[in-house]
């Protein structure tokens, strides 16, 4: 297992609210949370994760809610790229062709389309993860029914593989601890091991997938040097290992 991560925190312009959200996430022992702005602007010093000696890691994420194919443009500036397709055709395109890390499953409405096994298997082969957010279930009882129903049908199709559970929290009170979320995974039909992976190793795979999106096939990584003549550098062996890990 790897460290626990919550890969979906809703952004708000209210800086203090974002800061309290990140501090609560650190207290709940999550280790990586994405926000869509330069992290330095958000908080000067990141809080230490509860019971550890290192600070929480904060990433940038963009979620594109797609209702037409032209809505999607690849953004390499973000650490994580997610897409929420509104129709079955867009879901098919996202699974097979789009360069994304996460495909979000809608939890706030009745299942908009049937999730078929073929695009799901295609996405699994490409290393893309499906995401279910749980904070809507905390806010509203009708949303709770939709969340569970949509998640159960997704789990039946993907058989518990390539699934991550995250919060999409807008307030600190909507965050839950990693073991609680993994228990929630049991309600969605995941096994004990799959549910725990959904908040740890699967999230790690997503983060690595996001890193390789910025590289050339996960092998070559370019960095701008501070010296006068910018030069390309070969990636250290760790990057090639990460590319291999994604295919496992």
């Amino acid at each position, binding site marked *: *297992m*790897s*460290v*626990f991560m919550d890969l979906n925190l809703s952004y708000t312009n209210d800086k203090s609210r974002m800061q309290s959200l990140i501090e609560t996430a650190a207290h709940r022992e999550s*280790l990586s949370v994405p926000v869509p702005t330069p992290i330095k602007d958000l908080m000067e010093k990141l809080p230490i994760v509860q*019971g*550890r*000696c290192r600070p929480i890691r904060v990433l940038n994420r963009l979620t594109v809610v797609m209702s037409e194919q032209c809505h999607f443009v690849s953004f390499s500036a973000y650490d994580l790229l997610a897409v929420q397709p509104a129709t079955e055709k867009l879901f098919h395109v996202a699974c097979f062709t789009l360069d994304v890390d996460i495909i979000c499953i809608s939890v706030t409405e009745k299942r908009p389309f049937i999730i078929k096994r073929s695009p799901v298997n295609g996405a699994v082969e490409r290393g893309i993860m499906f995401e279910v957010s749980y904070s809507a279930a905390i806010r509203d009882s009708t949303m709770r029914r939709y969340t*569970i*129903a949509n998640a*159960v049908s997704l789990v039946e199709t993907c058989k518990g*593989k390539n699934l991550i559970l995250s919060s999409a929290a807008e307030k600190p009170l909507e965050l839950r601890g990693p*073991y609680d979320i*993994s*228990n929630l995974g*049991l*309600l969605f*039909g995941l096994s*004990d*091991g*799959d549910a*725990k*992976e959904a908040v*740890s*190793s699967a999230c*790690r*795979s997503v983060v690595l997938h996001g890193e390789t999106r910025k590289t050339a096939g996960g092998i070559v990584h370019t960095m701008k040097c501070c010296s006068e003549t910018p030069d390309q550098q070969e990636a250290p062996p*760790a990057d090639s*290992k990460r590319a291999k*890990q994604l295919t*496992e």
Partner: protein
Amino acid sequence: MKMRAELDQTPRSLLVSERSSFRDQKTRIRAQVEQLHFNYKVSVLLPECCSAPPHLDSIFNTFNSFYLIRNLPVYELLDKNFLETAVYQGSVYGVSYRTRIDEDNCVALTPKGHLTLSLDKDSFEILGVEGKPSRFNHRTKCRFVVSVDLTDSSMAPGGRGYQRLLTGLRSRLQLKTDFLLSHYPGGGASLQALLSRYDWSEHRPQISRHTLTDLSCPALLTSDLQSCDPHSFMEWVGAVDANVSCENSSSSFLSSLVCPEPRTTVSRALSVSVCGLLLPHDVHRLIQEIRCYLEQPHLESWVCLTVHGYADSPVSWGDNEHSVLKGGENFYSLLMFQDDTYHLHLATGAHDTCPP
């Protein structure tokens, strides 16, 4: 909407129950106590007792001290001087502190000189030393265990295996962790050379005492009487230790735990807990002292001793791998009777091997 039927199942746990006598030649109690190397908490429940007798108290107060070293580079455990003065000379007990077995890299040094590193995938690949995938990996191999016998000739200082591990820990992985350390019988003297190089502090085990009044307990008259099944008994012991009410009143929804039937009420009882890095040797001394205590006549002729292992230790009994799925429990409960007989219950969680 179809939901899985397995929702009412909890993760697997193992409970091994044994009945024997201290006077029996084939009793394995000593081995079973000694094999749980890293003990975090020892609780004793003394019925019909409001203060601990002086001999028992003195045992509690003379549990070994232990040391906490902050940010210890793990390669220091391979230091030649440390091996010669501490590891080869006696029993060193060491376990990493504030590291989670299912998230971080954890280290354990058992008294037989076995160094166990439980590493995540990246750390294992960077270290470059032979190891095995964890038995408790699920779909992907994300955790690996490196187990090294420091007393083996291949790990003698200067040897190839030793050099490879030392280079890996010193220059490739550079693993540093807070470390709890204890030594028997030498105590701190054998560890001084290592301690002096880093930020360390000595700690005495913390003792806490609670007097309980009107405690419902199972009617444990003699060891022969099958008063209640082990699961219910363990739940009751846990409830008493955690100070959870077993009243199960209709107005309270906090706990529905009950004392197993047939039950009796004890007017007062003493619960003593000791927390820290506790050595099996001290647990054994405590067991012998409780046996002496039981030889004298008392209103209730039993005492219950529970020993908890560290939830985040890489090893539990012996060198068996241990991990955490939902809970990392590895503990045993020894119910001792006046006639030198005992009931022993050893329990582990889902990610563990069967206790001895």
